[in-house]
């Protein structure tokens, strides 16, 4: 019988092979967070000087924030892309019938597979910026990254639910691409990684409270401001992320159960 651990092992293994056998892609993925830093700096200059940027964003260490924020942004995009695209990816390859033949419910496979892929992406993104942060800001800043990594992992969970819904929509619509790609720019805007959320129009400010990445960005700001972030704020972020994770994953799994039934009615291709 296939255990959850079997599925996790298989997905970890395929991620490893994928990176090992696609070295140029791996190199580009390592560079991606640095490209995002440039984008963020470009947006930052819209505020004027670096001091003004620090003040408006409410952070003490702009370097740490820029790199951590970049990792958060790229990881969030990766999670959405990978988890939402996992079904269409298998469809392209022709592997969808074979992963559906795993003797578990398809939603279980989808969730575990998406989770592993996403966590690998998160760790990968953070690992890519760690050397730059340590060189520019010192070893202590490197330790601060661990706190950010923790929040990024937690922040991945509610994103998974959103991505699952997107992945299911793509599969059921028989589309050849991830149909929620258009959400990515909105996700970045509402996360507050470029502009502080408080500067957004009211309707976007309200929407931002339902975006998990906003809370991970908040955590990155905390790490870039305090040596020891206030416990109550950390707990508040954890609490919100947990609630969102429960909400979005309940929706995502309900959708996946429906998707499995619908796919089997139509016939898996």
């Amino acid at each position: 019988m296939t255990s959850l651990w079997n599925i996790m092992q298989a997905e970890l293994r395929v991620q490893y092979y994928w990176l090992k056998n696609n070295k140029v892609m791996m190199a580009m993925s390592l560079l991606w967070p640095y490209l995002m830093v440039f984008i963020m700096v470009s947006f930052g200059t819209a505020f004027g000087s670096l001091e003004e940027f620090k003040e408006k964003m409410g952070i003490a260490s702009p370097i740490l924030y820029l790199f951590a924020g970049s990792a958060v942004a790229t990881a969030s995009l990766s999670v959405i892309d990978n988890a939402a695209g996992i079904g269409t990816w298998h469809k392209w390859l022709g592997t969808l019938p074979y992963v559906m033949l795993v003797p578990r419910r398809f939603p279980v496979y989808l969730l575990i597979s998406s989770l592993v892929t996403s966590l690998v992406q998160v760790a990968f993104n953070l690992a890519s910026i760690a050397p730059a942060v340590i060189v520019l800001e010192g070893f202590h800043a490197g330790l601060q990254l661990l706190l950010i990594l923790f929040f990024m992992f937690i922040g991945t969970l509610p994103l998974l639910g959103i991505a699952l819904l997107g992945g299911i929509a793509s599969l059921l619509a028989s589309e050849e691409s991830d149909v929620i790609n258009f959400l990515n720019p909105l996700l970045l805007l509402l996360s507050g990684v470029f502009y502080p959320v408080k500067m957004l129009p009211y309707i976007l400010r309200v929407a931002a409270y339902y975006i998990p990445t906003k809370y991970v960005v908040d955590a990155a700001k905390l790490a870039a401001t305090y040596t020891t972030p206030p416990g109550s704020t950390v707990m508040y972020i954890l609490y919100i992320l947990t609630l969102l994770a429960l909400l979005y994953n309940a929706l995502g799994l309900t959708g996946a159960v429906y998707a499995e039934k619908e796919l089997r009615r139509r016939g898996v291709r």
Partner: protein
Amino acid sequence: MSGEAIVAEDLWKSYYKGTFLNRRLAVQALKGLSFRVMKGEVYGLLGPNGAGKTTTVKIISTLMEPDKGAASVAGYDVVREYKEARRHIGVMLSVERGFFWKLTGRENLKYFGMLYGLSGGELEERITWALETVGLLELGGDEKYFEDMSLGMKARLGLARVLIKDPEVMILDEPTLGLDPHSARHIRRLLREEAGKGKTVLVTTHNMFEAEILCDRIGIIRGGRIIAEGTPGELKSLVSDSTPITVVLRAEDARAVEELYGRLVGDGVKGEYERVEPGKWKLTILAPRGSEDDVLADLYSTSRSMGLRVLEARVREPSLEDVFIALTGEEGS
């Protein structure tokens, strides 16, 4: 009932197109299809394209639910107990796809092996054994990316994925389609060996030769139903009242061949024709026993009058292909 590995009972399946508001019937793929496969048997579903073979395979593989009817594999209902059924089946759907392009044969098998519940030393052993059994180790397929493999190697890898599970029931949809004769022969031999070990094999094909030498029993499927079933010998006896005549003729114009064919068939005479090479055609005619001389005389006189040249005309023993033509071919088409 003990001894039955696969049971399909009155399966119906329709495909629809359009959206929810404009949903309309596209094709009725299965119309009450039934068959049973005994344990250790190689059963072939033989039929033309669009007959319902792949739909049947998908239902038996738990990848599709029938609209009506029931099916079970290894005693498990494929709809209600699909998770249990999946533990007992190994499936090969397409030769060309179904693997990660940028992973080697061994890496691909590791991934799927883990997904199917294998791990550690047992997984390594089974992968090496499967690669060796399908002949991929000697071809270097274990270290080759899937994208760099020949079609024959891809098919062997697909079979290796089935074998690593060590399933009771093997379900294969046209496993030798497009393969070179050597690879096709290798796969057929392997399937026979697995059946010899007690495995049940369900295979679809439209290759008569393959069905005849591979299968213990064959179900001829047409229009979503099994229209004849039996051993190759039993099926051949269905056309014992007919004599097959193979005709090879030279003709540049397809319309002339069509016209000749149209004049020959009818009144109990059935058949089909195909172009074997540019300017060369093969006609297979099933003549009622005793009327062979009349049909041949008719053939020669008609072709002469039409300016077509008969290169060869041979009266022979019935083959499975003749059964197929008799059962699935329209008179005069």
